């Protein structure tokens, strides 16, 4: 987001600031990735949740969809986080919630990266009309407050996480379009690419072989942070009733249930903590990656 970039409009939700900053700042951080406490902590949390997501059906105490006890029990030995309005085990549902939020977060970012990144890279590389068209569309999309845009799209398409997914891809693609474009433009000016051009490599080859790999670092940092933001927005949409459909154990929807049963505080506490830890994990990871990757690019 340098001011010379005529299209630069950062988004409120996503932190695109660092990614387009020319990577020459010196920063004395730890060299080995995992000696960075942020990365270590973030990786640990993320891994824990990944393991839970993959293995939960082997060891979860109950079925997340079955009523397994009397309703609205406060936390006890049998139900660590109590039971909800239907008598389902809150602990089990929170664990299963990872199967809703994590895959959708990865899918949203991957799709946004694929669609937005491709458009942005092409825009940045070819410039001129392609650049103007893509970037104007990105500007318009990004001028919408993300939650409003997602709400409007989700309301139009109907409830369900699948429609929520489309809504969120629409929110996120411009961020990656802009990011990739900026990276491509910055990298394009480097000597070895100019050299490649003089040697006579084709544009596509240059884009594929030289430009994209160099853009990888900035994208990775942003994508990591954005994973957390998608988890948050998914939960927010579900909280507003525009995301997950019952009986899915989605964290935001569970908080809505908790809000309805305000005095049964345990229903909302656990899913809230689940969201917080997942997002915190991604944020720490992204923050740490940024520190570390910046150093590496400075050394290059």
């Amino acid at each position, binding site marked *: 987001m340098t001011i010379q970039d005529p299209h630069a409009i950062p988004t409120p939700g996503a932190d695109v600031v660092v990614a387009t900053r020319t990577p020459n700042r010196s920063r004395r951080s730890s060299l080995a990735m995992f000696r960075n406490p942020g990365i270590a902590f973030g990786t640990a949390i993320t891994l824990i949740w990944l393991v839970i997501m993959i293995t939960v059906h082997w060891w979860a105490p109950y079925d997340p*969809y079955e009523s397994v006890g009397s309703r609205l029990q406060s936390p006890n030995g049998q139900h660590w986080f109590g039971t909800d*309005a*239907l008598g389902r085990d809150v602990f089990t549902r929170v664990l299963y919630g990872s199967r809703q939020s994590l895959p959708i977060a990865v899918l949203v970012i991957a799709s946004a990266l694929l669609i937005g990144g491709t458009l942005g890279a092409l825009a940045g590389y070819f410039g001129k009309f392609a650049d103007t068209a893509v970037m104007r569309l990105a500007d318009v999309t990004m001028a919408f407050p993300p939650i409003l845009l997602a709400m409007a799209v989700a309301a139009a398409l*109907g409830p369900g996480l699948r429609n929520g997914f489309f809504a969120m891809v629409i929110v996120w693609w411009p961020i990656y379009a802009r990011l990739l474009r900026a990276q491509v433009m910055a990298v394009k000016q480097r000597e070895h690419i100019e050299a490649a051009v003089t040697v006579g490599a084709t544009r596509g080859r240059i884009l594929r072989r030289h430009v994209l790999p160099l853009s990888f670092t900035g994208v990775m940092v942003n994508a990591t942070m954005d994973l957390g933001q998608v988890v948050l927005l998914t939960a927010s949409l579900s909280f507003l009733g525009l995301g997950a459909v*019952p*009986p899915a154990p989605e964290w935001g929807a569970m908080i809505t249930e908790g*809000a309805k049963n305000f005095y049964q505080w345990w229903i909302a506490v656990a899913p809230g903590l689940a969201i917080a830890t997942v997002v915190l994990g991604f944020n720490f990871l992204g923050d740490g990656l940024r520190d570390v990757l910046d150093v590496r690019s400075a050394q290059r």
Partner: protein
Amino acid sequence: MRSSFMGSSTGRASGRGLVAALATVALIAASCGSDDDSSGGTTVVGDSSNTTAGVDSTPASAGGTDVRELVVARDMDVNSLDPARAYCDTCQIYLTAVYETLITVDPSDLSQQIPRLATSWEANDDNTVFTFALADATFADGSPVEAKDVKWSWERLSNVKASASYLMDGYSSIETPDEKTVVVTFEAPNSAFLPIVSAPYMGVSNSDEAIAQASALADETAETDDSAEPFFLENSLGSGPYQLESYTEGDALVLVRNDNYWNGTPQFPMVTIKQVKDSASQLQQLQAGDVDIAMQISLDSLSQIEGDPNLNVSTTDSYNFVYIAVSPGAQGPGGAELQDPMVREAIKLAVDYTGILDVTVAGNGKLQASPIPNGFDGSADLALPAQDLDKATALMAEAGLTDGFTLDAMYPKVNVYGVDFDVMMQKVQQDLKKINIEVNLQPVEFPQWIDAINAEGIPLTAVYFAPDHTDSSQYPGYFGMIDGSPWSVRAGGGAAGAPIVNEKEAPLLSKALASSGAAKTAAYTELGQEMINDLIFFPLVNPQLVLASQADVTGNLYSGCCNLDLSFVGIG
């Protein structure tokens, strides 16, 4: 005769005491000029001299000094404040406080119909002509309430063709022989009309001012050309104890005392109905003393305030109910299978009714046999539904559907009368899974629901209903498989399908409207059984209501006609 909801609102809780049914029975028995008592062809059933029982018909009096402002916490569902277009539970409260009806119901003793703008009323033998004598009442601007205002208001209600217009269905003329007499004539017997007159939607507005200030129309052109609605969002033209001060959607409905009130001095200088969405917030604000009355405390949180010495908390039976409905003509998945009555019966038998009562209202409610709610004429002698999984499984096998099928269930995403539809439908989903029916839940916003159900029907849905008045006729009119009734069309698959008609029901309804006493009850009972046999509606919960206020608040009663009648509320 419609399900009484409007807009995408949630949390309506209109309450009806149990006794209202008795009121209806007693009243109709009397008003029909019971056969053994028809000396003069007409019978006076109401008269200002016999209203000493129960609460005074005059509003609670201020007694000199001003008491505090009254603050009521409520999740408001206002669709309009135009007396001819309003149709919601909050509207009932507003209209009752601001626009008066000719007759009302005593909230502490619902067997009493008491006068308001009318001093007396009578019906002819066959319930086709109704005559009302008006009191010397005045509107808030001091001008007298005259017969022409009643005629104009009722004609406007009928002609704008809004949700409550059906209340005037079937009238042939409204005559005003003099300034204080109104005569309404019906084409066919209408034993429901006197209860209907006490519905708040039948309130009287100042016609001269409505025409002058708002260019309001009351003739046939009102349907398309009347544009007075915005005016009524900012002004009121009634004769009631309170006047509209301001309404801010999402914030508050503020009423001020009508200083010219013709029938005593209203108790409160100001009444604020404050928008408070959640039951939990309402409860907290009541406990903190921030509000005087909280109208929608959930039954699950009742234990938080029971025994609080600063509060007045009780529960009462209501006439509200929540039901699921299956539409054999619906286009979506499951619609085809539902055409087999055995499948519909299997669904009925698979539902765990007591479990649903427990899950939705913590057991504080009743089961209900037919779409005619407990306490209404025709509800008493019908068998309550019960779960029978073995029989349900057998029926599914007989229908050749042992492996089950998928059933789409779109329902409005609401929380009404303490029943959260998401919770209820998840329970239904669990229950139907036991006979291998895979229910696909689709909670949607209310406008989308209406659109879907009118266009092509919905295989399985959930809805709620609160009565508009105290007569049973509204139920078969809405739920009956009678040509032209809303559910006859919906069950048949909306506009894309063909209405389902049960030939027995229309004649039964006419018979009920023309009869009285035991014959009328028998007719409604028979109608109730027919609606059970239709296997379209499965009423699930008839919830209780929580009445909660500060300990010094008096008169926080659910009125059979009007939800909360503010004119009876006081500080004691």
